[in-house]
């Protein structure tokens, strides 16, 4: 009996046909969803290479002569001497010029008057505070140098420093801190390779040098510096309310994938944009830069009201994260869990010691700028400008629900955009560049259905003509785009396969149908975008979201990404954009983006309005001015018109406006609904007036800020390296420019 391939019974035949059809359909779907994006190789981008700091073996340190407090010399260079107290592993650095001694912990005499006891007192004596958890549990306990069963080994690092190895015998846990003297001070490193977890105890976080330079209440004048907004100062001599007296925030904000932000909280704040903190006491100060591991770090500042009598500021590194694991898709209930895998990155902080004139926030800003320059993280100096370039954002329009479906409502066609530009030029705006928004085919923001350009605006042809006409006038045109967040309805990416995974391994989901797209895929997709925009003739891309403002991890099982990987790919993309088109712009412009962009929209300029932060200072603007053009809020979106204009002038920003040709009401119910007043006719005169004011600063556009000071309440002076002084008076709402070429 031979068997036929074709079954005899009718049902069997039907089943066979049905299964073939299903397989075919699946195949078609899978084929349709295949990876069609260009590869990274074609863009010349290769995967990041991780270089970990080596842990030194052998050669135990032989302690030399000890001083009265038990410190022995470890290393020495022209300017500083590094000392260590072998019993407690406390360190101190002596500035040879001034003979000033920085300590990792309060001295013994100071501690004698301390009132706290127990763990808090122990912490004061330790150069680190480590939080550990038992595997499978979430209860955290802390360890420090006073903990029982601790063995400390010292190893010499060439002639520049020392390696301290802490082994907790009971917990079967060890890690290493390396201290190295540098020409500006000291570096402290926690190498990833130095961490050993042999038992069930796991490291949750390490708070590094929590009391370095700590100032006890009433002992000294000065302030703590925290990177809130453009920079914030916490003075020692204020009497504070008990609330909000400590500061603890993650650098670059929370990682959305870690699900560690409070969904309930409706309160807004500025996320930290640069990994710098500092402290000033008397005429000494330090600026500390988190060089490696900022993506898992928190800046902590404390005032004497909480925990101890000290003002201190420091960094704490997370090695694991706690998160709420959802137990059901039906309820919001979660079980708190700690992720087992440890973060495998080195942590490195550089302390730059400042004294005398430089020992203030301007000095910290300069130290930070020097650091960025030395490490190639800052862009080239800008070209000298005859006139300040106005950054003009033009909103094309957007889709709004209309008669049951939605339709595109144009607010500014390409022809009208030209009218705006010509009108402003004729009225005296001598230099400007244009960012065109709302051109994407889907008619929505946070989209990646882009081409062809919306036909109601003029389509691809209209765009080409517009760009050509702009080029004739020497105006550069950027188109805006979105890299991170997507709304599933307007995205060609699939949320489930292309969206990032959150720490609990589920597909990450924002409100509604939004998600964040895997950065590698987003970068690869940009190649197509760049090619299409190149064809139109556009000079660059301005990323409203993604590079410069959003860093996140992707916990997918194959090829997971850390935040630093994401940053790496974003940087590579920005470079690629500049290579292919010439200009790249970002929003906020967090530190990692600085070298890779030509324009920053909305550089952090406002504080989070924390009650504990006494003064907001332009440390970040001081560090970047002259290397990249940046704006604050668009002029037509200011909360308090004159004050925010003065602030932009004080902080050396360029003017920017966000306009439409039609009345702003046209944008109602589109994604640009928050642009509540943008009509060109209404704003034209004020733009020209504003521009003339900003243009007085054209001569310093490419220069460094050399000083910034408060003359009295409401009056501030910003000085530039050529001697120009810009005095801003918030009381009279006036400002003046003196000296230098501009004066």
């Amino acid at each position, binding site marked *: 009996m031979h068997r036929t391939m074709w079954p005899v019974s009718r049902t069997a035949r039907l089943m066979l046909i049905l299964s073939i059809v299903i397989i075919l359909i699946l195949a078609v779907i899978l084929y349709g969803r295949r990876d069609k994006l260009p590869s990274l190789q074609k863009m010349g981008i290769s995967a990041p290479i991780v270089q970990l700091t080596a842990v030194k073996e052998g050669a135990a340190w032989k302690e030399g002569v000890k001083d009265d407090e038990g410190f022995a010399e470890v290393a020495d260079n022209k300017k500083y001497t590094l000392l260590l107290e072998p019993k407690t592993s406390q360190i101190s650095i002596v500035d040879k010029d001034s003979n000033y001694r920085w300590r990792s912990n309060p001295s013994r005499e100071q501690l004698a008057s301390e009132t706290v006891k127990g763990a808090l007192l122990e912490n004061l004596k330790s150069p680190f505070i480590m939080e550990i958890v038992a595997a499978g549990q979430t209860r955290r306990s802390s360890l420090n140098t006073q903990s029982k069963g601790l063995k400390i080994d010292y190893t010499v690092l060439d002639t520049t420093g020392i390696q301290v190895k802490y082994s907790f015998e009971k917990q079967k846990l060890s890690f290493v801190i390396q201290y190295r003297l540098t020409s500006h001070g000291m570096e402290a490193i926690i190498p990833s390779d130095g961490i050993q977890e042999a038992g069930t105890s796991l490291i949750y976080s390490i708070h590094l040098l929590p009391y370095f330079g700590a100032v006890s209440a009433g002992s000294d004048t000065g302030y703590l510096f925290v990177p809130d907004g453009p920079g914030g100062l916490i003075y020692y001599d204020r009497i*504070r309310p008990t609330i909000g007296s400590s500061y603890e925030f993650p650098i670059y904000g929370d990682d959305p994938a870690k699900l560690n932000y409070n969904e309930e909280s409706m309160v807004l704040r500025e996320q930290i944009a640069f990994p710098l903190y500092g402290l000033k006491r008397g005429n000494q100060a330090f600026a500390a830069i988190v060089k490696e591991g900022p993506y898992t770090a928190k800046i902590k500042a404390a005032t004497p009201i909480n925990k101890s009598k000290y003002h201190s500021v420091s960094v704490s590194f997370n090695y694991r994260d706690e998160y709420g694991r959802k137990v059901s898709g039906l309820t919001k209930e979660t079980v708190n869990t700690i992720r087992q895998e440890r973060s495998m990155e080195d942590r490195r902080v550089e302390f730059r010691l400042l004294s005398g004139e430089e020992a203030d926030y301007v000095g910290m800003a300069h130290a930070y700028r020097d650091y960025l320059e030395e490490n190639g993280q800052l862009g080239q100096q800008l070209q000298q400008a005859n006139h300040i370039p106005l950054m003009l954002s033009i909103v094309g329009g957007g889709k709004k629900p209309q008669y049951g479906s939605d339709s595109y409502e144009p607010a500014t066609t390409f022809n009208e955009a030209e009218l705006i530009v010509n009108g402003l030029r004729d009225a005296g705006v001598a230099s400007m560049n244009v960012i065109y928004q709302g051109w994407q085919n889907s008619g929505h923001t946070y989209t990646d259905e882009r081409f062809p350009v919306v036909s109601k605006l003029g389509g691809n042809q209209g765009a080409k003509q517009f760009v050509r006409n702009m080029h004739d006038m020497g105006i550069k045109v950027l188109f805006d785009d979105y890299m991170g967040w997507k709304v599933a309805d307007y995205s060609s990416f699939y949320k489930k396969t292309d969206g990032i995974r959150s720490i609990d391994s589920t597909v990450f989901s924002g409100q509604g149908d939004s998600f964040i797209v895997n950065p590698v895929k987003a970068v690869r997709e940009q190649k197509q975008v760049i090619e299409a925009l190149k064809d139109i003739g556009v000079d660059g891309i301005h990323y409203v979201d993604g590079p410069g403002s959003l860093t996140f991890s992707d916990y997918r099982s194959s090829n997971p990404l850390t935040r630093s990987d994401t940053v790496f790919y974003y940087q590579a993309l920005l470079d690629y954009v500049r290579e292919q088109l010439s200009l790249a712009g970002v929003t906020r412009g967090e530190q990692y983006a600085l070298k890779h962009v030509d324009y920053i929209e909305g550089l952090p300029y406002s504080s989070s309005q924390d009650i504990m932060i006494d003064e907001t200072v332009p440390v970040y603007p001081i560090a970047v001015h002259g290397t990249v053009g940046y704006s604050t809020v668009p002029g037509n979106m200011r909360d308090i018109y004159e004050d925010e204009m003065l602030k932009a002038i004080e902080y050396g920003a360029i003017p920017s406006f966000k306009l439409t040709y039609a009345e702003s009401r046209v944008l109602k119910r589109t994604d640009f*609904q928050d642009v*509540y007043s943008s009509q060109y006719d209404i704003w034209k005169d004020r733009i020209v007036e504003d521009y003339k004011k900003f243009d007085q600063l054209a001569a310093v556009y490419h220069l460094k800020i050399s000083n910034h000071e408060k003359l009295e309440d409401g009056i501030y002076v910003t000085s530039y390296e050529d001697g120009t002084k810009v005095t801003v008076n918030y009381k009279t709402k006036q400002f003046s420019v003196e000296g230098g070429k501009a004066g």
Partner: protein
Amino acid sequence: MFDRTRHGLLIKAFATCCLLGLLFPEFVSAQLPYHTWYRDLNSGMIATQPIYVPDRVIDGNRVEGGLASPSDVYIAGDNHVYIADTSNNRIVELDEGGEYLRSVGMEAGPGKLNQPEGVFVSADGMIYAANTGGQSIIRYSANGRFDREFKKPESKVLTADYHFLPTKLVVDRRGVMYIVVKDTFLGLLRMSPDGEFTGFFGANKAKLSWLDRLKRSLLNERQMAQEISKQPNPIQNVSLAADGFLLTTSSGLSSDGQIKKLNAGGFDAFHNKAFWEPHLVDTAIDQNGFMYGLNRDNVVSISVYDPTGEVMFYFGSTEKSARQLGITDYGISIDINSNNELWVVDNASNLIHIFKRTSFGDTYMMAAHLYFDGDYEQSRSYWEEVIRQNGMLNIAYNGLGKIALHDRDYRTALDYFKQSNDSVGYSNAFWYIRYEWLKQNFLYAVVVLVIAIWGLSFLARRAAAFIRKRIWPARLKRYSSELRDALYVMVHPYQGFYRLKDRNISYGVICFLLLLAIGIHIWSVFASGFISYPFELGNYNIPRSLAFKVVPWVTWVIANYLVSAVKGGEGKFREVLQASTFALVPYIVITIPTTILTNFVVLEEWIIIDLITRGMWIWIIVLFFVMTQVIHNFDFTEAVKNAAITIFTIGVIWVFVMIISGLAYNFYDFIEQTYREVTYRA
């Protein structure tokens, strides 16, 4: 109960909706720690520029001894600020800028305060303190010297278990005190200047759900006594408006009237209106009658109401252990001074937040003031300025519409009212336009109408004759006769449905009628006049509105067939289907003219539309009933029974479907979570 959940979620749902537009930049940056929301006339909330910005806090540093659990703030006519500094047992007076002036009630003796939670200063400068811990009201003269203490008044009404724990108070021009007493539902305690009890005032009434009403009508007195009694919201706070009205604020959902504006007779100018903010704790009122409510909601903390009690703006936010300017932890009291600065007391953080009005806020509030005063002419320039600064706000267009109406520029007015989704204004403007049109064109209109009617009937006759003369394919003939029967059913239900018995109407005609009904429904949405749908049509959810009509119809067909089959009805499924389809014909026939009519009627005449629509639905229901009777050959009582059981069955089917889908989702979730758990542990 349904009501309650709805209320509780309102603000949150609101804000979440609006946040969607702003969702992504949320994580990034902030100029202010909160958003300002504008509540649009009829079209939800939108984010705008701030009308108030946090200006500064008073942290007690400059106040001798600091502040400890401050509970109340009162701003007197000279802008001096009085604070009930509860845990410091005193009243603190600050000047306009917040500089410390003096403390009252600290001296030992009869004027020594004990945990005062409220303060009021009368026009003649007398300081009244609600001395909560001491269970009394203490009055001080303007120089701070003790004047008189008022203990719990003697009255039969005030029994021994009525604890006199005064927390807030106001004093009217005659010196009568209105006192908020802790933990009582009886309302404000009214005390004469001599300290005599003169009755309770302004108590809230518990809101009864339909379940409570049912219980009340069914249960006897003893059973009722066992039920947990429904308590209304206790009054939290009271303020005095410039025009002598008392403003009470209550928190919670067990009664309406969270804010009441009471006259001396206890009459509420807001008619016990339900407010959308269930966590209100205090209300301040400015010279122009605008109110500022303080919430303990984490989405918003301050709501700004127009003089009629409608919300215009929300701003601020609440957070546990708040740390930012303008963010409160446990807001407890709010007041406004003559410079329109808002002073908000945070009881938990011992701070007073001061909010300053922005220039946009000034312009807007001025425009709104003139608008509510009816001074349209004056308000024009303000509204124009508001539009320059924010083109998204409907009320500005509404204001301009009213001005245009006043100027007899009806077409402009019509356009403005349409833009601001105001059906009343639109209807008014339209009335004038129609009136003027009729005045000019009445004769023409009549002539045209007559000619049109004559022409149409002539054409119809010619067409009928033409059709009769020709020979048509059998199929087409059948369809047309079936359609004629459908129309016949409308007016002769019994005979019409009888014709359908034992006869198969072609599926083509059934489908045609069903699709026509759906099509007409959709068409009516777009073709109706503005007054029918006075909002952005884009927001109208067509699939859902269709579902509300289609789903009941489908379940009716199924249920009717099932029930009749069991109860011995004759009808086959197909008969039920075709009869149910024919019963829809009135909808098709009547919706068309009413939809056209809605374009020509004003609100006052809207009753015509309502009557026609209601009549149509009754007609359809009658048809369904007759259909049941005829198709299944029931007598009248049988048909009534059958219809009732069908309706019950429809309910059962729905519940069943809901349960099944719920269980299916649960099962799916169980599988998915098990998988995740396994992969997590692995």
